[in-house]
């Protein structure tokens, strides 16, 4: 369903994604793990047409997203790392807007919005504006929205960030059910190793832009002879803390970037 071959993305000198290759089969739940700044989000952005790869090949359901952009976009749903709802619109309006943008016919749109909002327990709050929603509700709405156009692939970029254990648990239960009932391929990133261990069929660990290990959770644990996935992850990526915050030079560079393109 997803094929990535020798994918590279550089920002100036910095190689954010450095020659990665992997495949995700249809109906699989694939977890992409890595420390902060390892290149997870950059990879997702390239897979979802938001960023042009420097080099390498990407195939989504047999389509090259760089060439057949809109056909490829129709085939996936995405939940971004940070919220992407319009907070002035209601839950229902956000869903409806999405349905229109994805060319879902009106009748089907109305049916599916109702079904998904009920499934994610948001139907009672459908006429409230998003700014009155809690973090967990927003997340659930974003996943419901991502599924509205019956995508073949669902991208989840750290969907449980900032959620309480209850919401996280519920969210993954939903995702697993959908994966089983609708055969949606799921590509996810997370920092919670227990979640990856629980839901993922296969895992790739990325560090410094390179994939350092791939396999099922059990295989990864075996490879590193550790008891937990967290242990395996630390063995693979080292235990030093990644500094993602920008120094003053970076900030200046960012400021300059605003003006020249």
């Amino acid at each position: 369903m997803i094929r990535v071959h020798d994918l590279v993305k550089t920002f100036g000198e910095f190689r954010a994604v450095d020659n990665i290759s992997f495949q995700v089969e249809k109906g699989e739940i694939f977890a992409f793990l890595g420390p902060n700044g390892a290149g997870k989000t950059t990879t997702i952005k390239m897979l979802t047409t938001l960023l042009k790869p420097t080099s390498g090949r990407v195939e989504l359901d047999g389509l090259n997203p760089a060439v057949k952009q809109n056909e490829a976009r129709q085939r996936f749903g995405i939940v971004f790392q940070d919220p992407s709802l319009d907070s002035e619109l209601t839950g229902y309006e956000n869903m409806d807007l999405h349905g229109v943008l994805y060319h879902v016919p009106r009748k089907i749109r109305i049916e599916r919005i109702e079904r998904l909002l009920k499934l994610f327990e948001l139907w009672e709050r459908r006429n409230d504006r998003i700014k009155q929603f809690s973090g967990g509700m927003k997340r659930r709405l974003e996943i419901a929205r991502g599924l509205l156009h019956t995508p073949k692939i669902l991208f989840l970029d750290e969907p449980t960030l900032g959620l309480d254990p209850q919401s996280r648990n519920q969210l993954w239960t939903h995702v697993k059910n959908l994966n089983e009932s609708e055969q949606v391929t799921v590509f996810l990133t997370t920092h919670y190793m227990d979640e990856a261990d629980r839901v993922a069929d296969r895992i790739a660990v990325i560090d410094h832009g390179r994939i350092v290990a791939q396999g099922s959770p059990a295989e990864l644990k075996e490879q590193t002879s550790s008891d937990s996935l967290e242990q395996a992850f630390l063995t693979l990526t080292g235990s030093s803390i990644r500094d993602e915050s920008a120094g003053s030079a970076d900030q200046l560079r960012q400021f300059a970037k605003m003006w020249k393109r």
Partner: protein
Amino acid sequence: MGPIYILWLRELKRYVRSRAQIAASLGQPLLYLLALGFGLGPIFQKSGHGSYLQFIAPGVIAMTVLFTSIFSGIALLWDRQFGFLKETLVAPVPRITIMIGRTLGGATVAMIQGVLVIIVCLIAGFRPVNLAAVPLAFGFMLLIAVVFGALGTAIGSVLQDMQGFQLIMNFLVLPIFFLSGALFPLTNLPKALGIVTSIDPLSYGVDGLRGALAGISHFGPAIDLSVLCILAAIFLGIGSFLFSRIQL
């Protein structure tokens, strides 16, 4: 058509729901109209130009349309900051469609805001000289809205964060307004100011509006119309080019 309509509708809904903002945005035009209109009125009258209120009202209307449309374009920055932009950029819809929907929505909002200010002007004592020319005035308002909505989109596509916003405000939007002849007649200006005002796109919008509403025109409606149409085409082109290049 669906995507354009739904994005247009979104702009309208956001506008209608921010009632406090609507009220706040009427404050500034009101101040210009009352403080300058009545404050400078006697001097203007004595120098033989007629009623300053009649003169400045089209300028204040143009100002409102300018501010509303350019900000609705720059609101792209807000959408970028609050994430909604990504939702529209991964949708299976050509970027140009998204830009058209947004710009039309912004232009509609600017028109509504302009009409509100016209009503305020009428209450303050402004009277259009020729009712038959009022549709032409709406045409000019729409052109101003499209020209600056597209410019706002172009700027919003390039800016990466909020810090640049204040700069744009002080070094672009306010000069466009103050150097447009919205507040003073374009005749007998010092040479340098004369040149600057004639490159300011808003000068033609203000002049067209003033010609239609108050019967005073500097360039003539034909020139005003052609300049604004050409600029609309150019800015829409630049805006959609820059918008299509956004990467997140």
